[in-house]
């Protein structure tokens, strides 16, 4: 047990953790600024961006399809249970639609993709760090932020909204299947519910949020990958930190963005 571990010196430990957190915030800010500084040159390497779009988007598709199908199905079961004798079942399509496109689709997809992609990016860059591949890039006068970070962050920002749109559609389909087969709602009623309460601002708010979530996932994976120290253990630690920080920041930013979007931008 280290001298500053929590049970022996709690105040020193907490103070140290706060210091680490502040330093992390500063370093992430510098990485974000460095990414923007290298954005134009980084985007010239279109092949790198397209490769990352395939890895981040296409390779996440099956996972997103499975999860979103069951999200919609569970949403239908829950709605039917909570509506019981209180709300007419004709609204089940509306409730599933709005809950999926505003919140469930963007947030759950981002958490799932954040786990998969954040871990993959951190593990890849962490391994590159400990095997001196990132040093080799610098030694060859190639900026690692331009070569590694820009394509991953841009690909995350582009692919996450696309995945969320697909997830929304699949979740609504999942809700439809359960509503028609087990709840007893007709196809016409379900579709009518979707049409009656579809607002473009709901869809837009969800998609706008995913732009930020995509950036968070990309940056967290890259940041923790770049900061990897040691060998295999260090890669494991970086991977865990990338996933945890991406998921926590997605949820925190979801709250902030929900307030901004629904209180100000889409208030009317």
């Amino acid at each position, binding site marked *: 047990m280290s001298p500053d571990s929590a049970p022996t010196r709690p105040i020193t430990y907490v103070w140290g953790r706060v210091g680490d957190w502040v330093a992390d915030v500063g370093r992430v800010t510098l990485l974000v600024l460095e990414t923007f500084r290298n954005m134009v040159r980084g985007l010239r390497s279109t092949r790198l961006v397209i490769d990352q779009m395939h890895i981040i988007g296409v390779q996440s598709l099956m996972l997103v399809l499975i999860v979103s199908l069951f999200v919609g199905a569970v949403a239908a079961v829950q709605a039917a249970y909570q509506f019981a004798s209180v709300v007419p079942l004709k609204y089940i399509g509306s409730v599933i639609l709005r809950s999926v496109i505003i919140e469930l689709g963007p947030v759950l997809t981002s958490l799932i993709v954040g786990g998969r992609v954040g871990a993959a990016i951190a593990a890849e860059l962490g391994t590159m760090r400990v095997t001196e591949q990132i040093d080799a890039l610098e030694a060859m*006068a*190639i900026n690692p932020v331009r070569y590694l970070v820009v394509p991953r962050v841009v690909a995350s920002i582009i692919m996450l909204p696309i995945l969320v749109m697909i997830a929304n559609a699949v979740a609504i389909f999942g809700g439809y299947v359960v509503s028609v087969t087990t709840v007893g709602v007709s196809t016409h009623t379900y579709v009518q519910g979707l049409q009656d309460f579809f607002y473009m601002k709901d869809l837009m708010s969800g998609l706008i949020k995913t732009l930020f979530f995509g950036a968070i996932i990309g940056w967290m994976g890259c940041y923790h990958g770049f900061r990897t120290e040691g060998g295999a253990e260090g890669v494991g630690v970086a991977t865990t930190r990338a996933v945890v920080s991406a998921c926590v920041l997605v949820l925190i930013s979801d709250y902030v963005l929900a307030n901004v979007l629904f209180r100000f931008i889409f208030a009317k």
Partner: protein
Amino acid sequence: MIQLEGVSKRLGTKQVLEDLSLELPTGLTTVILGRSGTGKSVLLKHIIGLMHPDEGRIVVDGEDIASLDENELNRVRRRFGMLFQGAALFDSLTVGENIALPMREHLRLEEAELQRRVAERLSWVGLEGVEDMKPSSLSGGMKKRVGLARAVAIDPAYILYDEPTTGLDPIMSDVINQLIRSIQQRMNVTSVVVTHDLHSAWKVGDRVALLHEGRVQFTGTPAEAETTSDMIVRQFIEGRSEGPVAAV
């Protein structure tokens, strides 16, 4: 010409380099010897600007690289090639793409010319026809040779070697030593080899420098190193645990 003037570097609580001064003559191969943990690799990373000194100057062709901004530093780095200890090949790229990467980044070459140069560099290290292989399918010796082909991809003026023979069998070590010599003669480059492999040092080195406790203990030719009366150098060369340098 590379000159290190009064370079000091502390990592955590350890003073790795302390007021170190060393001149690396143009066109020669200088071998930097020393025990594990004496800062040889740290010194190499200072020369190419991957680490920056706490104090002192690192002068490359008249420019103090510690004072350069990123663009200027990258301009200097283009004069360098570096072979890393584990070769540091990019796993996601093929052998050919690894060697082509610095050319794509820094030279404006037609694709056919670029591929011709990749094949030529591979032939220099005795690895024709492996362009499409992935680094993961190469042996340790092959990785080092591909790393060397990548290091010379854009005709550097300086080549840095970090433990080029570590982890290789004696025969492959000799192959690497011969490649270091042949590339030095073919390209007339200035080379810096960090190693604790004495056989390799005598084979490739025109000059030898011994690092001890963050400073340069000795510089001279291999012949001078073998006949010096410096007890620290003698202990290192003779590989004795008894002597002025504590073994543990």
